[in-house]
């Protein structure tokens, strides 16, 4: 049986880890700067921790809030919680007290796991390092292996909370089968091999990195965990130590690597199979620089959301320029488009539709939030806010978020197209294009721009250059220079703050 066929028979990630712990027990599962755990060791620790949790009264479906420590203990704890039948609720490493309280209360959590105790302390607490304390013996391992086999696809595995810059966070429920399907999407999207060793230097509390971890574990391959890329000496030392062949990044981490160690990154071109990116759009300048530094490496940009993960992948280093393209849907995912009247349409470049997804990666819904669930689904598909269309080759092209697309005198302008053109002008570091109200046309484009160090461009200079790159109606009416674009931690531009 091939690895892929095996993956198709799995119902949960812990079942896959149990499988590999028997098949390839000495293969590296996960390493961090302090320790390395093989599949055999990882399953014994997860089984031991699950056994401890069950003995201490944790029951099927109980919610366990788990604060990210970005190391092997976090991986073992996540697997142990899910093996015990409980539901893991990841929290960011640098989470604010108010958010811990909000999430513990809204999920009715019974246990809080973290590197350090939470001072408020009404809830039962454990140190996350306890997940590494107890290796299960053979008898417990055998019982836990059987338990892992019995976990159904429909079992709630985790609740992922959106970071939410405004208002209350949304808790997205993921079942065991959803995690398997997303992991398959990634394995297919990047053509992951069993021998791959992937560096994950971005937060495991966030769906993007967590799912890369799951993909590696479904595939029986290896991951190396790091807390960020800013300390590049350590990054490359760890890459060397574990002979890394792939890297998972978000745009903000990519930007740091490009700034701090472009030459060192480039020296890895013949050793890397691929770099995968996702979670936010990558600035065109960074994409181009990465292609220049790693000409022989596959460079993937993933499209997806926590609700419907990793549905499209595009290798943007194959020599073909495809503006605004997000790639082809992976096998698990099928897309459809809705018009402004809420009915299905055949979307085209002239008449884009709202993109929606169908497939086993789709969340069953938000935790205890029927109102939001009604907004999330349309005819059984998960509806996005993205305006897009699919061409005859199956490639999907995205114009932008529904609220971000600029309707200028009835014609739609993709802010990304304006930004890509502006970003290509020498001296411009990055830009954000947003709608500005206009009495005559309804909306017109407005451009915020950040200059590179030492550059000296005025709005008028940019206007002149853009007229050679874009149709006249797409050239912004207003130009505003700012020091830094407002962004979320993973590099997504916070357009609302610019409108």
């Amino acid at each position, binding site marked *: 049986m091939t690895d892929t066929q095996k993956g198709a028979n799995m119902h949960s990630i812990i079942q896959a880890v149990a499988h590999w712990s028997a098949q390839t027990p000495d293969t590296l599962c996960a390493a961090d700067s302090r320790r390395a755990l093989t599949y055999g060791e990882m399953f014994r620790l997860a089984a031991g921790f699950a056994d401890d949790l069950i003995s201490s009264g944790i029951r099927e479906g109980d919610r366990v809030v788990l604060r990210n420590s970005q190391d092997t203990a976090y991986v073992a704890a996540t697997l142990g919680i899910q093996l015990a039948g409980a539901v893991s609720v990841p929290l960011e490493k*640098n989470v604010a007290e108010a958010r811990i309280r909000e999430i513990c209360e809204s999920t009715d959590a019974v246990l809080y796991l973290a590197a350090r105790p939470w001072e408020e302390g009404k809830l039962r607490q454990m140190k996350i390092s306890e997940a590494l304390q107890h290796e299960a013996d053979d008898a417990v391992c055998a019982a836990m292996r059987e338990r892992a086999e019995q976990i159904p696809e429909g079992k709630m595995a985790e609740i992922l909370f959106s970071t939410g810059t405004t208002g209350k966070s949304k808790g997205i429920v993921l079942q065991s089968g959803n995690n398997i399907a997303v992991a398959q999407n990634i394995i297919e999207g990047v053509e992951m091999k069993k021998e791959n060793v992937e560096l994950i230097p971005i937060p495991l509390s966030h769906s993007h990195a967590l799912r890369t971890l799951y993909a590696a574990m479904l595939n029986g391959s290896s991951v190396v965990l790091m807390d960020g890329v*800013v300390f*590049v*000496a350590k990054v490359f030392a760890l890459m060397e130590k574990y002979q890394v062949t792939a890297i998972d990044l978000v745009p903000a981490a990519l930007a740091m690597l490009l700034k*701090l160690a472009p030459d060192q990154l480039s020296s890895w071109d013949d050793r890397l199979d691929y770099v995968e990116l996702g979670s936010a759009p990558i600035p065109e300048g960074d994409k181009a620089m990465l292609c220049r530094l790693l000409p022989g490496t596959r460079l993937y940009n993933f499209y997806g959301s926590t609700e419907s993960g990793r549905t499209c992948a595009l290798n943007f280093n194959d020599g073909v320029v495809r503006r605004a393209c997000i790639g082809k849907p992976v096998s698990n995912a099928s897309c459809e488009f809705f018009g402004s009247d809420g009915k299905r349409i055949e979307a085209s470049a002239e008449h884009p539709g709202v993109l929606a997804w169908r497939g086993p990666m789709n969340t069953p819904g938000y935790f205890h939030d029927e109102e939001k669930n009604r907004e999330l689904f349309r005819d059984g598909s998960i509806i996005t806010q993205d305006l897009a269309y699919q061409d005859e080759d199956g490639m999907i092209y995205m114009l932008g978020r529904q609220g971000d697309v600029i309707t200028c005198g009835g014609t739609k302008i993709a802010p990304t197209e304006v930004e890509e053109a502006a970003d290509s002008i020498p001296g411009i570091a990055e830009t954000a294009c947003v709608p500005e109200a206009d009495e005559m046309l309804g909306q017109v484009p407005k451009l915020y721009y950040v200059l590179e*160090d030492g550059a000296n461009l005025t709005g008028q200079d940019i206007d002149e250059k853009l007229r050679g790159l874009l149709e006249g109606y797409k050239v912004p009416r207003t130009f505003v220079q700012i020091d830094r674009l407002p962004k979320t931690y993973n590099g997504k531009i916070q357009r609302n703050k610019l409108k």
Partner: protein
Amino acid sequence: MDELENVLRTAVPKVKDWRTSQNYLEDGVIDSIDIISMVSEISDHYDIDIPSEEMEAENFCSLQSIYDMIQRIL
């Protein structure tokens, strides 16, 4: 040291006190994006390139450790 403090103030204006903490990252005084701003400002001000082998957490944990790193590079 006063000069360096002014450079860091320019790089990360939100931080008012650079002297109390001896572990900026652990204490949540700065994050990784702030370090990028600090690297840019230090490079410009002292006209140096911080080599990647100096990009270690220990070199960015206090005013003294940053000062020592700059002295090594100058």
